[in-house]
């Protein structure tokens, strides 16, 4: 097989890994959902089913930053993980995040247009007595697209397809907002979990077993969150906590922070105040991922 066309010449069509639409192999992205066809082509090469871990969360909760730093840490063999990106496109997201943070800027907002999302496909292995290789597909979704899908299912079918194929979910929730008394994070998380519950359509009394990591982002605002994320969630995200207790069997709460110190800048005559990450101090980024991989 040539590098330019990993699919053999007898394979003129490729079935999208996400929505199962048949596409000409010469296309870079699925014509239906815009997922890279390289995902399916790489799967054929590996001859093993990839595991999808989907990162969910409201707009501005930190999905892009979290996933970018996670992938970068994996690339640098953090916590005894070995991770190999499958295709150059898999590195785009971490490059975007690291480059922006190096210039003390948060990365730009992820657009709702599906053809502008970043996808990461990594071969991951935790070194130990019995190393096990897992292929992970982790898309960086737009928070507004997730919110629109939750509000009106089938608005973004790709999200439905992703969730139905996900082996694990990471739900990111803004701990800083929640600690500040805002109910918005709790309501969004409740809606999200209700959507997931409806999607998996478990019987009454049976709890859904898909592992779900609830990641409390921006915990640098609420240092106590690191001591006991479960108690923090129970106190400040009670609706979410109750939903998870009732309907999901495998849930774990984590605290996470990436910013070491934050400044706020504004231009003369500007109304907009821009947060400036002065330096990064990663904390709690790997733990949710490690837990999810252990559950797979």
């Amino acid at each position, binding site marked *: 097989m040539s590098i330019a066309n990993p699919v053999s010449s007898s394979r003129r069509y490729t079935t999208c890994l996400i929505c199962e639409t048949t596409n000409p192999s010469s296309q*870079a992205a699925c*014509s239906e959902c815009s997922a890279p066809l390289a995902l399916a082509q790489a799967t054929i090469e590996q001859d093993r089913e990839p595991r999808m871990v989907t990162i969910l969360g409201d*707009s501005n909760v930190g999905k892009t930053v979290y996933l970018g730093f996670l992938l970068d840490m994996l690339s640098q063999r953090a916590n005894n993980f070995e991770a190999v990106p499958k295709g150059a496109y898999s590195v785009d997201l971490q490059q975007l995040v690291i480059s922006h943070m190096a210039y003390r800027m948060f990365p730009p907002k992820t657009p709702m247009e599906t053809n*502008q999302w970043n996808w990461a496909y990594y071969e991951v292995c935790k070194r130990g007595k019995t190393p096990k290789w897992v292929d992970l597909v982790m898309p960086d979704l737009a928070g507004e697209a997730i*919110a629109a899908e939750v509000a*009106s299912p089938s608005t*973004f079918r790709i999200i439905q397809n992703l969730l139905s194929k996900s082996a694990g979910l990471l739900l990111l929730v803004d701990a800083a907002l929640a600690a500040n008394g805002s109910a918005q994070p709790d309501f969004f998380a409740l809606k999200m979990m209700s959507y997931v519950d409806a999607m998996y359509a478990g019987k009454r009394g049976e709890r859904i077993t898909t592992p779900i990591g609830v990641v409390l982002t921006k915990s640098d605002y609420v240092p106590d969150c690191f001591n006991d994320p479960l108690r923090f969630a129970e106190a400040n995200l009670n609706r979410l906590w109750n939903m998870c207790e009732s309907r999901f069997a495998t849930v774990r709460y984590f605290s996470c922070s990436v910013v070491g110190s934050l400044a706020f800048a504004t231009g003369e005559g500007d109304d*907009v105040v821009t947060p400036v990450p002065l330096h990064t101090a990663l904390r709690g980024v790997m733990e949710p991922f490690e837990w999810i991989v252990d559950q797979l």
Partner: protein
Amino acid sequence: MSTLAAAPETLTVDQAIFTSIRSPMGSGYRLVAASTGLSPEERRELVQVCPSHGNLCDSGPEATGFASFPLRSGRQCLLFAEHAGPEHSARGGQRVHTHVLVLETKAFRAFGCDPFAVLAGLAGRVEPGWVQSPPRHLEALSVTAKPAALADAGAGPSNDQAEIVIAILRAVLDEPRVLVTGATDHRRLMHWIIQSLPVAVRGGLTFAAGLKASPARKFRLLVASDDRTEAARFLQDGGVRHIAWSQPPELAPSPFDAWLNFVARHWDAGHLGQLQALCAKLTRDASAATLTRVVALYNDLERVALVNPETLDRLMQNHARMTPQNELEHELLERFRNAAQQREPQATGVAAEPQ
């Protein structure tokens, strides 16, 4: 020529605003206001199609974009997007504010299937302040339909521009999908294209100008920037004719050549009003054969006063055998016959004199 025989009727236009603002109910891009006439399915489709962060081709604060296409419900949707200051989460980039108009097909046809005529009809009804402070509630608008006034035809393309605009028109008529890159004034370009297409063609033309390509915006015509990444996104599906504004393509013969030459002549002569009036009357059939016949009839009508008696006689014989296929051909044929009959005694008199 008159444009509308019937009295103008009052039509209803639903509207919505899609943008990113903070409110007690949430933040981020969503439909922040919509009139009650929009169905849940239409609202869902608007969320899929409206441009979100960074999806105007131009990143500058004055960037605009617009689109015209039918919703799955059958109603016509017009989007008008612009940048509206820094995005509220302060992660860089401009907030995109999109005003959406949705109207019945019948209403759109009453405006001559011309999005600019719809916008002109609503002039003064849309508050400029909505861009900075979108309202929470919107009412449907009542508007009196009229196609774009002949006096508003404006100036046509210059001689330098005419070649490339004709190439674009040819591609729109011949090809399933067209991408135009590098045009600086996409609004003016679309105005020329719309004004030069028969209404029957305009009604089926889906287009976007100034908006980046996306799976939900797979329109027949996309007018975008020079950005190669963007062009690649639109071209990846195949079957797309790409025209770069700075490089007019070589023109292959087209079954629409008669019509395109007719358009170019009217631009050159500054007769945009006449062109517009003729387009307004081609409301049903605009096939290449029909347009060729209409152009031939129109040209012959113009020639009646100029040709010699023998040529006039030949033209009259040709058209005596002609059966008009539509109302416009019938009208042109009647006008030709009347003009020819008025001219004929003069022509006979001139020929008889030397004897």
